[in-house]
């Protein structure tokens, strides 16, 4: 008799665990979809138009080569972010992280106002590539991969 009760208890427990696991799995796998993005690309930001005017948002892309204007006295930084399709001008205060340079992946937190992205927080998005510098190799090559994924995301 007591074995029966034990068995039933165990069966109830297993059923309960399966239900909880199922619900948890649904929440994580089904409830979240591709729309959970950490940042928008310039193309996506521009496509949203007035929806994103002066609201907190993250913008990510690559620093357009030759676009960086750094005023060391005023700690004032201006550059252009690109995703291979569109570009957005970014304005930021304060020194950027050390790895900031042309063609580097960057994610900015801030607001898009009158065609300029006012960044309050600037983060580097590193690629999955780690290499010792080789003679003759350009930094552009290492961001090819990230560039590709951004383009795919933007077009999908």
């Amino acid at each position: 008799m007591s074995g029966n009760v034990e068995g039933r208890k165990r069966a109830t427990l297993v059923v309960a665990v399966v239900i909880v696991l199922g619900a948890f799995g649904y929440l994580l796998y089904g409830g979240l979809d591709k729309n959970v993005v950490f940042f928008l690309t310039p193309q996506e930001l521009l496509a949203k138009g007035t929806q994103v005017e002066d609201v907190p948002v993250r913008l990510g892309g690559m620093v357009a080569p030759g676009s960086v204007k750094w005023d060391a006295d005023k700690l004032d930084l201006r550059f252009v972010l690109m995703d291979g399709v569109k570009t957005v001008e970014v304005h930021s205060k304060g020194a950027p992280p050390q790895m900031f340079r042309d063609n580097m992946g960057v994610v900015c937190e801030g607001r898009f106002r009158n065609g300029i992205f006012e960044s309050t927080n600037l983060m580097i998005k590193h690629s999955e590539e780690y290499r010792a510098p080789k003679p003759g190799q350009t930094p552009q090559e290492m961001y090819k991969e990230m560039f590709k994924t951004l383009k795919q995301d933007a077009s999908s």
Partner: protein
Amino acid sequence: MGVGTVELSVAPARARRSTGMLIGLGVFLLLAATQAYSISISTPDRDMGHLQKIMYVHVPAAWNMMIAYFIVAIASLRYLWKGREKDDLLAAAAAETGALMTGLTLALGMIWGKPTWGIWWTWDARLTSTAVLFFIYVGYLILRAFVDDPDRRAQWSAAVGLLGALNVPIVYMSVRWWRTLHQVQSSPSTLDPNYTLSLRINAIAVMIVVLFFIRHRYQTMQLEAAADAMHERIALGDRGGINA
């Protein structure tokens, strides 16, 4: 069942303890050696210089926490199926080690993130899911500490242990499923050959450390469980319990 039994059971435990200490020393020497070797052969990365070497602990810790949680899942399922205390203790030992590795992954990730990304923390899918994983298993350990009845503790732990393990593939795939600040997994094609070699030997060394921790905690927990059972018998007037 008297004092004699207690004394007798101490001797093999002592012998096991010194064996464990020797194995532990060997395991840590191995890790120190792989670390030293990797640091010596790795040329500075073109972007982050020597900071790249944080990879040799951050990534092995992340990989091996997955192994630990896989053991938690298997042992928890087996416990729910067969109801044996041994499986519960194995799950607990693996969960402890897993939580330690997740904590190490997070801590080193933050230390790495500040000088390279420019931030200690942000709420992208990879970082958030890893933090959730960490808190689930910290919760698991707290749950074990607060439930006294071994059967109930084992059943509840098995449920939480399985729930937490479900999160592991999500953590791994998060950088591919969602757009994150954290980059996707590196592979030998995106790493210099000496970085790949260094990462691999350290991953193996950390795996041996993790397996040693799990084995050591599993044995300790079995001894604790045996001591608890013995205390209970003594408290019941040395009659071998109510079933005798």
